[in-house]
């Protein structure tokens, strides 16, 4: 596992995306009817979850859908997993178009090639882990000895063998997540879709889960199988992971940033960060007069500084010489303005494009009850 991780780590830094796309979206829009006041009669307000989204996800890579809650990540994954339909636009998954005219048989053939991990683990708590995995195997047409072997093999590799006989309700959050990942991988999918899979996990369990995911994505799928479609070359599994956490997105080869249903950035993480230059100055939590003073100092030094919607002053240094940057830093220090200077993060990129902040890393783990409330909302 450690070797796999090291190999994968060397690759992640910056990979080009010449591979054929596993997912292709063109002008995809999804609107939901509003609930509550104003939703009845002529005053109906629609909520646009996806607004003319176009993107391409390369086959065999790990791609992150990064955005805050409500940015359209889950809606996009629901459409890709055939649970929902786009109102307009083109959706192509593994070489197959998905739309209102897609036949049941066509969709079922596509589903046989997909693995999906939802925000809440899709395991029946009243059943044992083994029963859940065997049920999943049956849903994918695997039965008898083949199903048993798959279940035991997956359990061994995800280190849940000794818990196969336990009811899911008795497992810890981390173990449930591992069992859920085993469920999604049981049929060896070409495309794995994960919707914020680390919600509710403590830091250690989250790290273990992400390491397992990286190990899965860094090995080659069954070579030589004739399946058709973009990812039928026996290459690596394509993984599309939605998250609102920068550090999770950072571990992927490509990042697609979503904000209010629109794609605001789409590139390798390193290239996205480099788009802001070598350094970024952030003025955060300063008094109003300090903020104005900071903007004046930075502008005078030739650094383009803008106050973002979140209140943070962000100053990328992409077109500034070292001398001017040094001068700006000295003047900010003399003026007593609280500021930070450092290499750009994906959060800086997100802020530069949207004006809003993104969570840097994991917040307090969400309790299952809180998660359920949020999902109902």
């Amino acid at each position: 596992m450690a070797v796999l991780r090291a190999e994968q780590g060397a690759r992640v830094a910056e990979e080009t995306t010449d591979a054929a796309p596993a997912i292709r979206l063109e002008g995809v829009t999804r609107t939901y009817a509003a609930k509550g006041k104003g939703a009845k009669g002529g005053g109906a307000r629609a909520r646009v979850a996806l607004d003319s989204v176009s993107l391409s996800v390369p086959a065999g890579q790990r791609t992150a859908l990064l955005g805050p809650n409500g940015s359209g990540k889950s809606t996009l994954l629901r459409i890709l997993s055939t649970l929902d339909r786009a109102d307009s636009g083109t959706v192509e998954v593994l070489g197959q178009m998905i739309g209102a005219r897609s036949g049941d048989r066509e969709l079922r053939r596509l589903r046989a090639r997909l693995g999906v991990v939802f925000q809440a683990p899709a395991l029946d708590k009243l059943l044992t882990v083994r029963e859940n995995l065997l049920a999943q195997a049956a849903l994918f047409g695997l039965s008898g000895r083949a199903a048993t072997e798959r279940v035991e093999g997956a359990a061994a590799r995800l280190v849940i063998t000794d818990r196969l006989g336990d009811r899911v309700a008795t497992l810890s959050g981390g173990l449930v997540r591992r069992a859920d990942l085993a469920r999604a991988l049981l049929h060896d999918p070409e495309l794995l879709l994960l919707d914020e899979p680390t919600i509710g996990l403590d830091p250690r369990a989250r790290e273990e889960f992400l390491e397992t995911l990286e190990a899965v994505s860094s090995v080659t799928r069954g070579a030589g199988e004739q399946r058709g479609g973009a990812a039928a070359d026996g290459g690596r599994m394509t993984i599309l992971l939605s998250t609102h956490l920068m550090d999770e997105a950072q571990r992927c080869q490509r990042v697609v940033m979503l904000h209010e249903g629109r794609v605001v950035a789409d590139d390798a993480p390193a290239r996205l960060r480099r788009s802001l230059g070598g350094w970024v100055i952030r003025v955060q939590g300063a008094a109003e007069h300090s903020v104005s003073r900071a903007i004046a100092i930075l502008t005078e030094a030739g650094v383009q500084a803008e106050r973002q919607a979140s209140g943070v002053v962000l100053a990328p240094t992409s077109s500034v010489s070292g001398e001017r940057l040094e001068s700006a830093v000295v003047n900010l220090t003399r003026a007593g303005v609280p500021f930070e200077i450092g290499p750009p993060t994906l959060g800086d990129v997100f802020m530069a494009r949207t004006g809003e902040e993104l969570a840097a890393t994991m917040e307090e783990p969400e309790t299952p009850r809180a998660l359920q409330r949020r999902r109902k909302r």
Partner: protein
Amino acid sequence: MSDVDALLGMRRGPARAGGGGASFRWLLRRELVRFGRQRSRVIAALGTPLMIWLVLASGFAGSGGGPGGVTDGAGYGAYLVPGMAVMVVLFTSIFAAISLIEDRHAGFLQSVLVSPAPRWALVGSKVAAVSLVSLAQAVVILVAAPLTGVALTPMGVALGLAALLSISVGLSGLGLALAWQVDSVQGFHGVMNLVLMPMWLLSGAFFALEGASTWLRAVMSLNPLTWPSEALRWALLGESGLPLPLAWAGAGTFAAVGMVLPMVVMQRPVRQG
């Protein structure tokens, strides 16, 4: 073995969009296992009708045969036998519908919907589970029926079980179709009180169709649950408020609609849990 097989330690066996037989069997097994592991469901589904039966039969014991004035010779307790059997089926169907909403909230339903398993396997497994469980429970009612003076015959029991099967298929299908449209268990309680319980109350479970006022008789005759319930009443008690061909044809229609309706409704995208 490929690298991913080595990683997962498994022998390859291609996943496929098969006919759904294996999916149906496992989903049915899951429903039955879940039922067995939820003792409260077993107690509620069987205990409530038994309690209502006992209370009503005892309460109306001195009232000249009870509402409707039927079941010559036997008491009101005998008249209630088919109604209580229907109630057992109704409760089991309601629990199955609620379990669909719970499956959606828990995420299990989504995992079924993103698999290649056909929708009929999902609908069929829920309906089959309701039918098996409710028929087993209804047998308890039938075993107790002679205590109230009902003279059961083998043919009557066989036809009664056939009528109960049509009721369980129809009610569970209707419940699943309604549950698909509803966001929450609380919301489904509203549907239950507005649709399912009135259907049962007006099916002849408490009072006979032929003894009701004209307008109520018209309403009861249009209630689809009345048709198989009258067929059941005829099978067990030898009397019916509807012409027999109509009752049995209605029973078949009710079951057929119960199978088709959820299949049609579930073609729509599932609501977000």
